[in-house]
C-alpha cells in the first residue's frame, strides 16, 4: 500500500487530535490586519474625540456669547431701572400726576400681640424703638395729609 498517495482525512501521525493547521502567512496577515484595525480604531477614536471636542468648544463659545449678550442686556436694563427709581424721577412723576402722597409717621406703627389680637404695650417690646404710640399726638397725625 502506497501510503504517500493515499488520501485520508485522518490527522498527521504525531499531530495533536482536534488542532487545525493554518498557514503562517495567513496568521501573519491576520495579526497585521488586527493591528491595523486597532490602530485605525485608535486613530478614528482620537479624530472623533477631537471633532467632538471642537463641536463642544464651538457650542460653548456660542453659549458664552449668548450669556454675554444677556448679561449686557441685563446691565442695560439695570441702568434704566436705576434711572427710573431715582428720587428725581419719582418726584417729577408725583408732581406730574399731582399725587397726594403722605409722609410716613412713626406714630402709625402698631404691634399686635400674636394670636390674642390685642395691641401690645410698649414695655413688652423693650429694646425696640418702634412701639405703639398711644399719645394724643399719634391720633392727631394719623390720616393727616402733608
Amino acid at each position, binding site marked *: 500500500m502506497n501510503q504517500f498517495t493515499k488520501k485520508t482525512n485522518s490527522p498527521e501521525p504525531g499531530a495533536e487530535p482536534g488542532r487545525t493547521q493554518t498557514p503562517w502567512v495567513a496568521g501573519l496577515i491576520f495579526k497585521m490586519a488586527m493591528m491595523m484595525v486597532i490602530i485605525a480604531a485608535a486613530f478614528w477614536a482620537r479624530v472623533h474625540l477631537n471633532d467632538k*471636542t471642537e463641536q463642544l468648544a464651538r457650542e460653548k463659545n456660542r453659549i458664552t456669547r449668548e450669556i454675554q449678550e444677556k448679561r*449686557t442686556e441685563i446691565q442695560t436694563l439695570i*441702568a434704566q431701572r436705576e434711572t427710573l427709581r431715582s428720587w*428725581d424721577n419719582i418726584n417729577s412723576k408725583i408732581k406730574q400726576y399731582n399725587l397726594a402722597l403722605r409722609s*410716613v409717621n412713626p*406714630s402709625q*406703627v402698631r404691634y399686635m400681640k400674636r394670636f390674642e389680637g390685642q395691641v401690645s404695650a410698649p414695655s413688652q417690646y423693650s429694646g425696640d*424703638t418702634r412701639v405703639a404710640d398711644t399719645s394724643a399726638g399719634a391720633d392727631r397725625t394719623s390720616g393727616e395729609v402733608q
Partner: protein
Amino acid sequence: MTLFRSMAIRMALVYILLICGFGYVARVLYSVQISRHDELFGKAQNTYTTRIETHGTRGEIFDFGGSLLVGNVPTMDIVGDPANIYILNKKDDEKTETECRMIADFFEKNCENVNSDEVFRRLSKRSFISKDANGKEIERECHYAVIATGVKYETAKMLKEKVKELAFHGVSFTSSYRRNYPKNTMLANILGLTNVSYDTFVPIQGIERSLNDAMTATSGSMVYERARNGRPVTFTNSKSEPTLDGYNIFLTIREPLQAIVEEELDLMCERVKPHAAWALLVDPKNGDVLAAAQRPTFNPNDRGTMTPESSANRLSELAIEPGSIMKPFVVSYALDKGFVTPNSIVDCEQGVWKYAGRLLHDTHNVGKVSVSEVIKQSSNIGTAKISVMMGAKNLDNALRSFGFGQRTGIQLKPETSGIFRPLEKWDSLSVSRFCIGQGIAVSPLQLARAYCMIANGGYKVNLRIVDRIERGDDVRVMPVIRESKSIFANPTTKKMITDMMIGVTEAGGTCTDAAIEGFHVAGKTGTAQKVINGAYSNRYYASFVGFVPAEDPKFVLLVTCDDPTVGSRYGGSASGPTFKAIAERTLKYMYVQPQLSREEWLAERSAAQKALHERKVREDALVQARREARDRQLKEQQAKQTAKKSGTTVASRPASTSKSSTIRR
C-alpha cells in the same frame, strides 16, 4: 586587481561622501534643534499661536442698601479696517472710495455725533508712515479707523444687523462700556467721576479716585494655538490668566435720606439764595455718613454742567472759620474739668469786652448770666471769658481732643486737616478767639465728627463713607474705628452740655425754628464772618448743627449756608428751618418714636416760654432798679449842687417814693 582597487576607491569615496552628508545633516540638526531651538521654536509658535487680552469691568458703587449710584452701561465702539476695505474691493480705488463714502454716510445717519466727512477721511487712509527700530521710515497698512465710540447697546445691535444686510466690508463692532450715574446730580461731588484714556479709566475726584485701586479690574489673557481659520484648536495646550472685575463699593449712604437732604437743601437755596450750601448727616455711634449733599453741584452724565465751583468737594476739602458752633466744645471741656458748672455766673459785660487790646462784641447785650445761658444765647464774651479762665493750654487740649487739626479718617481724598496753629504759635488774642470759632479753620467733616463726640458721650470716632467692598464671595468690611475711652472724665458732662444745647432750640435760644414736635433737639447756631482778602467781610457762613433725639441721638446733622443773600443771615434763621425739615423727615424715615406727646411737648415749650418771660421781667426790673438808682444819684447830686448855691440843705426823697415813681414811668 586593478578593478578591485578602483571599486574600493569608489566605495571609499561614497562612504566619505555619505559620512560628510550625514555629518552636515547632523550639524544642521544640531543647529536647528539645539543651538537655535528657542529662536526657531518661538518663530513657529508666533505663526500659530494667538494671545487675546481680556478686560474685566470696573467696580460699581452702591448705597448701603444696594441701590446703584455709579454703574457701567454696555456700549459698543464701531471701527473700520481701511486696508481690508481696499483689499476686499479687489484693490479698486474707485470702488473703495464709493464704499467708504457709503459707510460714512450710513453711520452719520444712524449714530449720534458722527461726521460723515471725518469718517470718510479716516477710512480712506489705507496706510501710514512709521519708523522701524533702526529709524528707517516704512509704510504700514492701516487697520484701525474709529467710526463711532460709546454707541448705545440697542442702537449698536440694530446697526450690526444692518451692516450685515448691506454687506459693508471691514466694519467691526467691539464691546465696551461707559460709566453711568443713574441718579444724576445725587451725591455727585462725593462720588466723583472718571475720564477715559484709550481703554483705561482715569479717576478725577471723589470715591472714584480714592478707591480707584480697588475698583480697577485686572486684565487677563488667553494664549492658544489656532487653526487655519483662526479658531482656537481646543485639543492643544492653551494658557489663560483669569480676568478679575473690580471690587464693588458699598457706601454708608442711605439713598432715601440722601434724597431728603438734597431736596431740602434745594428748597433752602431757593429761600435764601446762598453762594453755596451743604448738609451732612452722620450716625454718631459709628461715624457712618448717612447723607452728604452740597450745592452747587453738577451732573456727571453731562460734563457741560461742571464748573470749578460746582465740582468742588466742599465737605472734605473746604476749611472755614466755623463761628459760634465751636462754643460747645470749649464749654463741655470746661464743665468736664470742673472750671465751671452750668449754673456758674459769667459776666458778659453787656455786649462789649476789651481783651488783649481788642474789643470783642456780642450780637445782643447780655449781662451776668449762667454758663447755660452763655450757650443758649451764644455769647462770644461769655465763652471767651470761660476760655481765658481755662488758659491757652487747656483750650488747645480741648479743641485737639475733639479732633480739630486732624483728618477724620474718611475714605475721601483729598481731605483737609483744617488750619489749627500749634500752641507755640498762638498770640495773645488766640485764647479769646479760637473758642468762638475765629482764627481756626475746620472742615464740615471735622465739625460733624466733633459733634458726634458730644452726641455719643465723648468717644472719638472716625468717619466712614465706605461700608464694604465686594467681589463675588470676597467681602471686605471697613472697620468702625472708635476709641474705647471717652474724652469726658466726668460721666455727667454729656448730659450737662446736651441740656445747654437743648436750650438753643427752646424759647429764648438762638434757634427756636429748629425745634421738632415731640423731640428734644440739641443744637447750636453759628454765624461766622467770611474772610475775604485777609479781612473779615460782611458776608457770613450761617450754620446750624445738632443731634436728635438729644438723649439718645440717632444722627448728627450739620447745615451750612455760605453767604445767604435773601432774608436773615444768621445761622438760626437761614439754616435752622432746613435743619428742622431734614431732621423731621429723617426721624420719620428711621421710625424714631417721639419722646413726648404733643401735650407734654407743648407744656414744656410753654414752661420754657414762661420761664423766659419771668427772667425777662426780672431782668427788666433789675435794669429799672439800676436806672432808678442812677437817677437818684443824679438827683442827689443836682440837689447838692442846688443846696450849695442856695445855702440850704434838701433832704433826699425816700426810696419807696422813688420806686413808685419809677413804676409809674
